[in-house]
């Protein structure tokens, strides 16, 4: 297990490096360097930058130097000093802006992941055991529809329903009185009350995919000879299914959970924007719209790194539950 972990760590490092390069590439994409853009923007507002300060920034970010030099300055500052650069729109360090919102993003992501599992696993298993029966058809059709509804549409629809029929003020993760309040029991409750819409919406699409995978895996496993072996021992039906096919069908499930993380972040960006949540998604969108590239690049980097770590954890989990992976036989 230890060696497996080390091996996976070795795989993760190049991935992280390439992801950071891609993130920086995106920062570089808009035409012209961002300082010029910012100066133009400031001048349009009738402000101007002190030439000395300008020169300092130029050196700090390596403007005008080759891509790799700029990249190196950017990434080394992040890794060594936790310095993601400066957001021009907010005139604050990117790291501060991200850290304010990252907690909620991760919370939202985890809640979504858990909800996805809680819904998808039993639904997939039931769908497989009751193949070609009513329950299977209902789950399949619901799954198809859930897969087809764009999540911003679902968010809008749910928000509308909440607004229209429950009088819930939609938007944000907190009610007005709690937005700037310190953490308290009431604030947590308020958060949970607001959390369910985005969580349900983001979970929706992922759930449909996982139900289908689980169902397919279970159908494959249910007809394997080892299930008959278990029955032939005299095991009760429920336990036969729990101990054998379910256990094995879970393996791809655990590994798809890792692949599922990117789609959760994708959903978060859209849904959080529609519902005006205080997470990183709207911040990213805003920064992209205003070409506040260090902020955008920082968020993309953080999200990608979180995803890679999530995938890494799911790989380790898979190895923990499946000896074939652990011993390199699958």
């Amino acid at each position, binding site marked *: 297990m230890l060696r497996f972990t080390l091996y996976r760590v070795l795989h993760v490092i190049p991935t992280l490096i390439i992801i950071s390069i891609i993130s920086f590439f995106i920062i570089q994409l808009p035409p012209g360097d961002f300082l010029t853009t910012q100066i133009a923007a400031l001048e349009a507002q009738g402000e101007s930058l002190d030439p000395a300060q300008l020169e300092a920034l130029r050196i700090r970010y390596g403007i005008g130097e080759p891509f790799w030099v700029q990249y190196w300055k950017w990434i080394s500052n992040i890794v060594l000093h936790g310095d993601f650069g400066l957001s021009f729109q907010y005139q604050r360090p990117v790291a501060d802006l991200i850290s304010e919102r990252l907690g909620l993003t991760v919370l939202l992501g985890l809640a979504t992941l858990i909800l996805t599992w809680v819904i998808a696993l039993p639904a997939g298993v039931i769908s497989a055991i009751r193949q070609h029966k009513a329950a299977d058809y209902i789950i399949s059709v619901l799954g198809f529809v859930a897969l087809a509804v764009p999540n911003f549409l679902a968010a809008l629809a749910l928000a509308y329903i909440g607004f229209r029929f429950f009088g819930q003020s939609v938007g944000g993760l907190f009610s007005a009185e709690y937005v700037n309040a310190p953490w308290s029991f009431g604030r947590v409750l308020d958060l949970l009350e607001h959390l369910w819409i985005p969580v349900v919406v983001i979970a929706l699409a992922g759930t449909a995919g996982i139900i289908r995978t689980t169902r397919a895996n279970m159908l494959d496993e249910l007809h394997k000879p080892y299930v008959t072996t278990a029955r032939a*021992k005299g095991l009760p039906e429920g336990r036969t299914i729990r101990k054998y096919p379910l256990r094995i069908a879970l393996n791809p499930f655990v590994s798809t959970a890792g692949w599922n993380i990117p789609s959760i972040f994708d959903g978060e960006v859209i849904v959080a924007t529609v519902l005006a949540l205080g997470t990183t998604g709207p911040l990213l969108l805003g920064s992209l719209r205003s070409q506040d590239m260090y902020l955008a690049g920082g968020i993309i980097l953080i999200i990608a790194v979180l995803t890679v770590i999530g995938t890494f954890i799911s790989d380790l989990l898979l190895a923990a539950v499946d000896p074939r992976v652990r011993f390199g036989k699958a």
Partner: protein
Amino acid sequence: MAVSFLRARRRRKMAPVKAPRELAAVAVEPEEMSDPGAILDIQNLRTTFRTDEGEVNAVNDISLVVQRGRTTCIVGESGSGKSATARSIIQVVDNPGMVESGRILFRAEPEGPVHDIAALSETGDGIRSIRGSQIGLIFQEPMSSLSPVHTIGNQIAEVLELHTDLDETQIRERVIAELTAVGIPDPEERIDAYTFQLSGGMRQRAMIAMALIARPSLLIADEPTTALDVTTQAQILDLLADLKRDLSMTMIFITHDLGVVAEIADDVVVMRHGKVLETGPVEQIFHAPQHPYTKELLASLPQRESGTGATEPVREVPPRVEVSDAVEMSVRHDEPDVEPLLRIEGLRMEFDSVSGSMFSRGQKKRIVAVNDVSLQIAPGSTLGLVGESGCGKTTLGRCVMRAYRPTAGQIHYDDGGHAVDLATLSKKELRPYRRLIRMVFQDPYGSLNPRMTVREVIGEPLRAAGLAQGSELDDRVEAMLERVGLRRAMGSRYPHAFSGGERQRIGIARALITDPTLVVADEAVSALDVSVRTQILELLAELQQELGLTYLFISHDLSVVERVCDRVAVMYYGNLVEEGPAQSVFENPQHGYTQALLSAVPIPDPRLRGSRPRIVYRPEEAA
């Protein structure tokens, strides 16, 4: 304390507590059994598979009696319903099958109560209390019949957890003892092994331990040796026989292999298309068969002289040894005089292999599949290449076909007087020889392109060689179809419209359409049922005689090789260990491995049972 309490509770939940009541409900009078000495009496059993398209009777109204303490073999070809019968007994038929009607009277103890276990609910406690504890089941494929993510110890222990009150340490001791009994070395370590860490034979032993650990009075073995090599098969058969004697069990043994039947059966049941055709003691079935189908099955067996007690094979006089066929006769008697059609020298084939472990990926290992093999094949003769799985025989055949480029060595092919070394030819230079050296594949399903008509499939090599086109091509294809025993009109059909035997005929037609000299037949009849196998072998022999073909006949099945080959070469772990005229190799094997291999082949005559000692080959270098 708390933990063991919980575990006890869980076990009570698993244990079939409602069994006595359910069993009492299906008890019948002992007089209703057709034979008081029987352990199992199946009466008018019908098992159907319900699909969207209607019902299929896999087991169609059969009755049979299993005598206590004896081994009853159910034999039949694929689709005969033998396996469905076995599974119906404890109601574990694969979905969507189910026991439709009939009675299965089971008497666990000699003078005990009789229950109609077919009347029990499929998922109820009653049948569960019998499964595993009274009736054990062993399956064909030990790899897929055991869970890959649970240790074998865990899976075996489960039987005891279900059916006994033993505690955890006692169970572990019992499992280790059982593993020892079935001949698994280092049982204290192997108990925690996963299936993929064991060899095929070891896995089947673990499966046997699982089926027997609760000491059932009846053991059902469903093709338990079919997936195993012949030497391993012999060991498992011996083990089962020993265990049956020591534990005084009754055994139902399902197989398609009459040789195995002759080795172990006391009573035989012959099935076909879901019906029982003939039953009787093994002696009677083998020596006085009544039903024509039984006779047909027996006719497909290699004939041996009975009564001498020796294992001398008596070759059928091959029809091709006619006076007119000068080449053939000279080959058989003094082959050095004739220039061989194919001369393989120092052939070596290595493969790159990513070693099993994930941690050392990137460290490539060289696997030597064929190691310095030299062979000759005389024109018009048949060389049999035998060995067990992984011995390199298929690789050798594919090197001759130049599907692979050999790592070293030469393959000299006699092209009308001058020898060509095929081993070094480029793809382009090989093209003229693609026509002369042809191959018949093992898998009659995978080797025919499902998207081409049979006419296109057979015509493809002619077209590729530019030998014919248009209507001439169609004529030649149709003539060939007729030659291999199919109808001309079948050319416009697709392969899915044919049975396995017919598909193999198509494969042969494709091989012979270009008028080849050498045909490599790689396990060409292994995937076929015995009766079809005989027809295909006869066809191959006829064609050889008629067209003067030379065969390299690759097979794991010694009885087939013995029947069709002039010379035999034996391979073991990539090495050629013995080569010689078929008769002398079979009668008087020189190499230890050949001796072991031959001694492991079941003798298809119950009268000769036990007349031959098993030889075990354990070379120092074999890992």
